[in-house]
């Protein structure tokens, strides 16, 4: 039997199918999908258990309790830091968001193997949905933190309205890291244990337990090369203690301040580029 047949005309609106990509398939669908998957994952994480959402609060609170007792009561650290307990709690909630989102993302693509191998959709939805899930948890936790702040006597201030300015870059740098981690994990499974170690190291290297002003002179600048450190430092000034110096001052003005900004942009751009390059092959490599 011949395989040569008459060729029929293809409608001029026909689209070329170019295979999977990080984005692609329409922005509307991309946004809806990220929202639905992120929200669903959030509901499944907390609504399936008896205490529900409380669990997402219990974890940072427990960590806070332990660290507070160890540092404030046993090591007697933090006496010279104004409002140390609330600063510690806020830092923990913010940093937990970063590690929670990135840790969810690492395995996210592999865990959604069925979808990746059987459906066409913008691949970047998967890590972004994981970040969204963590963001929803963060927002609810922040409500608790602010109640705690008011209870502690840290009054509401106009600077509190700047919170989104702090959260937006935090979510962006988290998304960048998540994209890098999730796409690398498809090929290199060592990424998971490496990330576990790295995130612990980052926890102590970032000014979570201590304010950046407690770092010996000359090292603050090095610590602030990490954009998360800058965000935490600025958060302290705007939210907890207006007398504390801002990140811009601590790092020492303009030429130096460009470094964390460059690191921040590099992580975001690298995340997009790495994921975009990996996206067409993810389905085959699973």
């Amino acid at each position, binding site marked *: 039997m011949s395989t040569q047949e008459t060729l029929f005309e293809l409608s001029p609106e026909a689209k070329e199918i170019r295979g999977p990509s990080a984005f692609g398939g329409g922005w*509307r669908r991309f946004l809806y999908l990220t929202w639905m998957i992120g929200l669903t994952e959030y509901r*499944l994480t907390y609504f399936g258990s008896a205490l529900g959402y409380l669990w997402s609060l219990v974890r940072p609170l427990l960590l806070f309790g332990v660290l507070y007792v160890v540092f404030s009561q046993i090591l007697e650290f933090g006496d010279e830091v104004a409002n140390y307990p609330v600063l510690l709690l806020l830092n923990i909630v913010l940093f937990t968001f970063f590690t929670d989102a990135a840790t969810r993302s690492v395995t996210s693509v592999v865990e959604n193997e069925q979808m990746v191998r059987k459906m066409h959709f913008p691949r970047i939805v998967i890590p972004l949905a994981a970040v969204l899930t963590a963001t929803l948890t963060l927002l609810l936790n922040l409500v608790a933190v602010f109640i705690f702040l008011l209870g502690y006597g840290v009054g509401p201030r106009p600077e509190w309205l700047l919170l989104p300015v702090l959260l937006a870059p935090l979510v962006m740098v988290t998304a960048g890291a998540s994209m890098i981690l999730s796409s690398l994990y498809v090929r290199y499974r060592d990424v998971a244990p*490496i990330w576990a170690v790295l995130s612990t190291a980052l926890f102590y290297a970032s000014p979570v337990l201590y304010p950046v002003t407690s770092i010996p002179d000359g090292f603050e600048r090095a610590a602030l090369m990490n954009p998360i450190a800058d965000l935490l430092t600025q958060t302290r000034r705007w939210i907890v203690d207006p007398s504390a110096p801002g990140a811009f001052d601590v790092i020492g003005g303009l030429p130096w301040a460009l470094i964390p900004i460059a690191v921040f942009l590099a992580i975001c751009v690298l995340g997009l580029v790495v994921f975009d390059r990996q996206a067409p092959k993810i389905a085959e490599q699973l």
Partner: protein
Amino acid sequence: MPGRHAAVDVRDLSKTFRVPRQHIMTLKERALHPFRRAQVDELHVLRDVSLQVLDGEFFGIAGRNGSGKSTLLKCLAGIYKADTGSIRIAGRLAPFIELGVGFNPDLTAHDNVVINGVMMGLSPAQARGRFDDVIAFAELEDFLDLKLKNYSSGMQVRLAFSLMVHSDAEMLLIDEVLAVGDAAFQQKCLDVFYALRDEGRTIVLVTHDMPMIERFCHRAMLLENGRVEALGDPQAVGRRYLELNFESRAEVPGAKTSGTGGATIADVWIEDDEGQRVPAVAHGQPFHVRATIDVHERIEHPDVHVSLTTDAAVHVFGTATSVGGDKPDAYEPGERLVVDIAADNQLGDGRYFVDVSVHRGGIGVAAFRGRAAQFVVFGAKAETGLVALPHTVTVERELERVP
């Protein structure tokens, strides 16, 4: 009926997988051997595949395991990126290639319907708006609050099917759908296929199930080792598929030889009416069972028996040279016999084996070959049994009961 415009146009599509010998390469290995390339096997899964699917056509893609049919479907769906060649598609394409992809077992039907709708490109509000229709079609009104993991597999597929029917997609790509479900459910699936086809949706179906292809598809394609082996009429494609399936197995399973050695059954085969050796015979077509026999010793009052058996060793049909009136006193040493049995094919669909034996005047068997050849019968109209008798069916309905 399919239109006159192409909905899918695939030109010279090739896809090669580079599969590392040891799949997961760790960073440690990379660090220790930075210049060693991972050893890879190249699998040429698709080679220069070209095809067109017409607007509103039900198009079947068949092929054996590893022939590349699922890879082709994934390239069409945009899940894999082709190496070379082009794919152009006109019309909205359903994004998934299997039913129920993206179902979350921990969610209720409602949540799953909404998420699936969003995956298909609806807004959450639109997806919610279609919920009632989807549930009604799937007949799942009584199970709305049940998590999907508590659904039976049949209920899950019903939901998935219903979503597919209620999607806006003009073109559906489907990979092996009917693996689950009981007979009643499968019947419902078939009804859905008929409905989709009559609605004029373009459907590309990948399946092993040849009767499905012959029943539904306007046209079909057969892939073999990543190449287009046949394209066009579903019946012809189905026949080629069966041929491929059996001609590659030169060894017939369960073949055995015995006898006293007075003769050797050299060869047994099936021929069509034109003298071509064939592995498959269409129902209703004349065919021949032929055997060559070398005689080594004098065999008095010989009789050659030929019988057809099934996989389950059921004896379906037997005949002998004596039946044909050939009753010689003896076969002499050095003789070569060619036995030819011409028959009309009234067998039902399935695989049959040929047993041949040379009997020596009622006192023993000079040579026996069990399962000396095999062939496949296809195209029988009724799905009856071992034989499909030529028949007609009529029903008379009388208003008055006969006393």
